[in-house]
């Protein structure tokens, strides 16, 4: 079980409504988190199969994901998930920040993440034993930070700090590796979705400084 966490502090009672683009950002992070944490069930697959994207890079990734969801069933994708992420001793890809940044699991990046989780009021749910620096968990955390699920409302500058500290330095490379994984069929368009979305996020965060007056 990955990615289960809950607010350790009281949620902000005066949470403002979310702008459309931030709702969408939270939704995409949540979708990625859901798919990277575990293989989708039949109900979720049926919904994904109905997607239609536009001609943008992210739109094409969504269209490809929908087509793959129509061609594969849940047990097949569950088996693929095992091959890609879990394997016997390890999967084709190792989806942890610590591994990508240091070559080892449970290392400094995980410690840094735990520090920020404590500061931001994100607590791991009981019973979850996997390290928190799993890409699926991190996507779920971003979704929660955008949506204000944990504590006080998290502004864009804070979101950017979290993104830069825990995602930006490694996740694009991870998604490129996932896209290239031999066993990946469903997870190939998932990887394209992740990569194109993170590229949008990176460019959009860079616009914060440009828009703020000194």
């Amino acid at each position: 079980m990955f990615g289960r966490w809950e607010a350790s502090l009281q949620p902000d009672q005066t949470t403002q409504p979310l702008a459309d683009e931030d709702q969408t950002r939270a939704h995409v992070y949540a979708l990625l988190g859901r798919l990277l944490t575990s293989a989708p069930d039949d109900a979720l697959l049926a919904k994904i199969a109905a997607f239609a994207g536009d001609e943008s890079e992210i739109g094409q990734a969504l269209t490809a994901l929908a087509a793959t969801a129509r061609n594969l069933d849940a047990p097949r994708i569950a088996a693929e998930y095992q091959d890609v992420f879990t394997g016997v001793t390890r999967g084709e890809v190792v989806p942890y920040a610590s591994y990508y940044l240091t070559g080892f699991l449970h290392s400094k990046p995980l410690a840094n993440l735990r520090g920020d989780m404590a500061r931001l009021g994100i607590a791991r749910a009981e019973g979850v034993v996997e390290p928190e620096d799993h890409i699926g968990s991190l996507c779920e955390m971003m979704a929660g930070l955008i949506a204000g699920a944990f504590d006080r409302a998290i502004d864009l500058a804070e979101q950017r700090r979290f993104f830069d500290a825990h995602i930006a330095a490694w996740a694009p490379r991870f998604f490129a590796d996932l896209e290239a994984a031999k066993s990946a069929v469903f997870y190939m368009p998932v990887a394209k979705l992740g990569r194109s979305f993170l590229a949008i996020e990176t460019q959009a965060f860079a616009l914060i400084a440009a828009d703020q007056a000194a």
Partner: protein
Amino acid sequence: MTDSKTPKSPTRREFFKTAGLGAAAGVAAGLVSEPAPAQAADAVPQSQGYRETEHVKRYYELSKF
């Protein structure tokens, strides 16, 4: 800056539109509005956004096997 939220900038909003995030909007929202089958029985009402913290917390339990 004293506001808890950075003011939404037109430039950022425009960028998201041209990058195709608008296309992703309806798609992703259609997925996340439903709770997972394994969850507790309470029906989650459709909300306009993430104003409901409980709604959001229940959604994140989708990860549970």
